[in-house]
């Protein structure tokens, strides 16, 4: 029942927001998101760390096709549901400085998006998963296409067609599996069973169908061309949703569907996937180093990070998957913080160009501290949240193949280069005409950044809160994969 | 169903003969006939009267309407012949069906009249 509440609450709040006018919208949205956060926190602490799915409900939805409305939270879902409930309040809070046109629609779309995301992460029926997967696309499309930058229509359309193209392949694979199930059931666990009946070539087909869908969503090299443009053109709240949470739909899909359903496919083609992921890490990092636009730089850094997560997942061992889970959480938090800082700088200076910025530190001790903490988290310094994930991921990839692990390890060095460059170019150095008289943080800005910075450190010191919750579920998943 | 495709051979022969006759006569007339051109010979044939005006003058659409209505009702009447021939065998059922048919036809006729298609001057 709790899961259902987590899905329905944002929808109801979204409808409520839609019916209000003017300033009230953001307040209602924030309150709803905070209530959702409280529920999410309750879920996290009430969760019994074992492999079972908890707080679930199941209704017959489309009886003739055997499709059920079945949701529940297991260890893997828990991490991502926590991420979603945690990050959305920050996203809403980060928009408090802006006065968007048609604000009520804007905030209701964010809340609908949240409902869809929670749905994706908790769905236990494959088609339900697919519906939520697609349903999240509509709000983010409109958020980006209505409130985005100059080039928004073209860019967001590319994004939309690209992702739909991918998810149609997923649909193809799901229908294929569903027909092969003996009882025409589409529960994900039933699909796990069915996968045992398929031979290597059939699993290869399914592998590629899923891979294309999720690789486009994350995105992995070479399916990433929509990503930098969309991140740059979308309003910052949209970019946060995209990179903070939506990207994790892809990695979650890999863990939940691809690995256990097509283990033979992974055996045959997994190396290709890992290689693509690692190419993405290096490629993304190198491009990030050369970026002049702050938002674009973070977009490419996110592309590089997700490559490492995918590599860890495809190495399909405990460390790799555990690492990717905690890294999803950490990356979601960090990237929202980074984009928010970019938004603050852009609002004050009207520029995101690194070359025209500099010397902001002189007037802004608070912003500097927060920026550096979040940056260090992103660079994966020990005792920050990024470190645990990256360490486990690299360990996982290393176990899979030492050479690949070594190349993937470049991410630490390259990541440090572009992140330090970002901070150094924008914050330090001499002040320019644009950054003169830069005001330090206001109240809502502090209220957003402080918890993020605290989370960066807390999760870095005590990652076991997360790791313990997900470990039984991951172990069970691995036993299914290796059966 | 005792026929074999080879039994249809005479039909093919017939078709072949028909086609050959047409082609042959056309080619033959071209070869044999003398060709003498003069103004009178090349003129449009108009029953011996001198032709007047353009052949492509527009004609009132009413002519077509009347013509097509004639054809329509004329053709429908043809259905009465087989019914009349088999009047006794078809019996009352046939009679009733014919009444339905005729009333539909009558409805159409009334419609045509009411529409004023047959009013020449309007």
């Amino acid at each position: 029942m709790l899961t259902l509440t987590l899905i329905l609450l944002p929808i109801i709040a979204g409808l409520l927001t839609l019916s209000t006018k003017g300033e009230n919208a953001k307040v209602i949205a924030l309150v709803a998101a905070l209530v959702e956060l409280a529920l999410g926190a309750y879920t996290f602490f009430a969760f019994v760390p074992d492999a079972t799915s908890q707080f679930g409900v199941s209704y017959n939805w489309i009886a003739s096709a055997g499709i059920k409305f079945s949701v529940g939270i297991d260890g893997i879902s828990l991490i991502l549901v926590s991420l979603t409930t945690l990050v959305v309040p920050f996203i809403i809070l980060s928009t408090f400085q802006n006065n968007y046109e048609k604000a009520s629609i804007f905030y209701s779309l964010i809340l609908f998006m949240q409902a869809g995301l929670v749905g994706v992460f908790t769905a236990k029926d494959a088609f339900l998963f697919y519906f939520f997967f697609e349903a999240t696309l509509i709000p983010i499309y409109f958020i980006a296409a209505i409130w985005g930058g100059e080039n928004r229509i073209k860019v967001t359309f590319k994004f939309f067609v690209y992702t739909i193209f991918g998810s149609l392949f997923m649909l193809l694979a799901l229908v294929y599996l569903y027909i092969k199930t003996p009882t025409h059931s589409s529960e994900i666990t039933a699909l796990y069973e069915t996968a045992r009946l398929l031979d290597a070539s059939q699993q290869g087909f399914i592998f590629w169908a899923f891979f294309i869908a999720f690789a486009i969503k994350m995105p992995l090299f070479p399916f990433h061309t929509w990503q930098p443009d969309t991140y740059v053109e979308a309003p910052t709240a949209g970019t946060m949703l995209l990179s903070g949470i939506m990207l994790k739909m892809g990695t979650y899909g890999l863990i939940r569907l691809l690995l256990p359903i097509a283990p033979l496919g992974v055996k045959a083609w997994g190396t290709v996937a890992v290689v693509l992921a690692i190419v993405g890490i290096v490629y993304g990092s190198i491009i990030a180093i050369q970026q002049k636009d702050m938002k674009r730089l973070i977009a490419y850094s996110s592309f590089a990070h997700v490559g490492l997560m995918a590599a860890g997942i495809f190495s399909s061992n405990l460390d790799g998957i555990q690492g990717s889970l905690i890294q999803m959480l950490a990356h979601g938090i960090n990237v929202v913080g980074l984009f928010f800082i970019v938004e603050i700088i852009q609002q004050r200076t009207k520029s995101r160009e690194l070359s025209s910025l500099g010397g902001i530190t002189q007037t802004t001790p608070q912003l500097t501290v927060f920026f550096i903490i979040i940056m260090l988290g992103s660079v994966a310094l020990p005792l920050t949240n990024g470190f645990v994930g990256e360490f486990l991921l690299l360990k996982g990839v290393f176990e899979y193949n030492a050479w690949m692990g070594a190349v993937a390890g470049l991410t630490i060095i390259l990541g440090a280069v572009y992140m330090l460059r970002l901070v150094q170019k924008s914050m330090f150095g001499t002040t320019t005409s644009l950054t003169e008289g830069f005001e330090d943080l206001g109240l809502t800005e502090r209220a957003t950044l402080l918890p993020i910075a605290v989370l960066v450190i807390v999760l870095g010191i005590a990652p076991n809160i997360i790791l313990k919750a997900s470990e039984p579920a991951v172990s069970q998943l691995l036993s299914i994969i290796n059966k | 169903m005792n026929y074999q495709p080879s039994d249809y051979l005479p039909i093919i022969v017939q078709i072949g003969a028909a086609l050959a006759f047409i082609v042959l006569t056309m080619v033959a007339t071209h070869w044999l006939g003398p060709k003498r051109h003069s103004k009178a010979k090349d003129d449009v044939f108009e029953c011996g009267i001198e032709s007047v005006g353009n052949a492509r003058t527009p004609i009132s659409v009413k002519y077509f309407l009347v013509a097509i209505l004639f054809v329509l009702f004329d053709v429908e009447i043809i259905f009465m012949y087989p019914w009349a021939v088999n009047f006794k065998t078809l019996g009352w059922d046939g009679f009733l069906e014919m009444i339905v048919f005729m009333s539909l036809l009558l409805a159409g006729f009334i419609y045509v009249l009411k529409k004023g298609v047959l009013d020449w001057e309007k």
Partner: protein
Amino acid sequence: MNAIIALSLFGITNLFLGFLNNRKILLPATLLFVLIAFGLNLADWNHEYYWFHNMLKTNNLSINFTSIILVATALVVAISRGFGNDEEHTHPAEYYGILLFSVVGAIMMVTFQSLFMLFVGIEILSVAMYVLTGSDKRNLRSNEAALKYFLMGSFATGIMLFGIALVYGATGSFDINGIGNMVNQAKLQDIMLNPYGPILYGGIILIFVGLLFKISAAPFHFWTPDVYDGAPSIFTAFMSTVVKTAGVAATYRLLSISFPAVYGLWGNPLVYITCLTLFIGNITAVYQQSFKRMLAYSSISHAGYLLITVLAKTPTTNSSILFYSLAYSIATISAFAVLMVVSEAQSKSGKPDESFTALNGLATNNPFLAFVLTVSMLSLAGIPLTAGFFGKFFIFADAFSNVSSLFKTIAVVAILMSTVGIYYYFKPIIAAYLKKGDLEKIELSPIYKLTLIITTALTILLGIAPDLVKNIF
């Protein structure tokens, strides 16, 4: 089969209602007629009857198809707005009458038991459509469309008639079950055993050509864009829903009852035709500047999706075709309804503007119309939680139910083409929501608005709970 008789009489009644000099009565009267026919049609539910000396046969499948046809007709009639107030140039009584006659033809096409009735049904439907296509007499494109449709259509029916003759020659029967039995018994597959095989083959292929022409499957689709574009929008809506449904139903009925034994003969060409239809319909639609023409090409592509399940011939094919036809019909009618009012409001020098740009900024002053348009486009594109999604879903499920691995390829083609479809179905949505335009608020009559609410609600409802109708089908 009382629906056929009733509709014929109602059609005549409509013609005479025209003499009342009261145009307002025609629309409600026609709507009532269609609803009565709907009721009569349902009266035969759960029975199998032969009618008119085994000429027609009704069963639940044919009743379902008839119901879809009648629902689509009722919706089209409801958005016809009485064909305007132009006393001199429009003849609403005749239009409604002819519309009902053509529905009679459509019903015959889905209930035929004898190939005679298939032919007669197609002719009744087609002749009526030729007239209606050209009903906008002062519009050159409408005239051209009618002539084109007439020439091509009569040619196609001629070819089909020849096919029927050949099939009769080979099997000695016009009855579809009789033909099926003959094909089974006489071992026509084997030319060595039965020299009539080639005659049958030729016949099947020619009938096939005629039917594929009617549902505008490639490569017999050339007439479609011009005719759909040239005909008045209201009749285009009718053609792309009722005529298409009837055509697919007739094709399916014939192939599944008479010729399952020679699947190899028509199955292989149909694979290519299906892929070609999907390909041509979708790719060409991308390049259209006119919304109406885009819908014409989209209707070609939907014929392709429907053919997939005809090909797969699984036990669920019946319900998949029915569901898809229903979902497609209501979404298409909504799209045309929006197109009609918007293009009229945007008309330039008397000509309605049917391009995508006419929709620019629709959402600003007409949020309702924009929403209706969006839902119908999403449904046609097959986005989840609309009826169109489940239509596609059932079709893919059918394709995979067939053991032949060929269907994997077809499904991949269909998926790729669906992506292309999303590209062009989003053009109107983008125009309506994201582009700027100066369209005033459009006033809608109550019945028009009600129809749009019904189609939109039905599209969403069937997208959330497809079982509502799927259990009936």
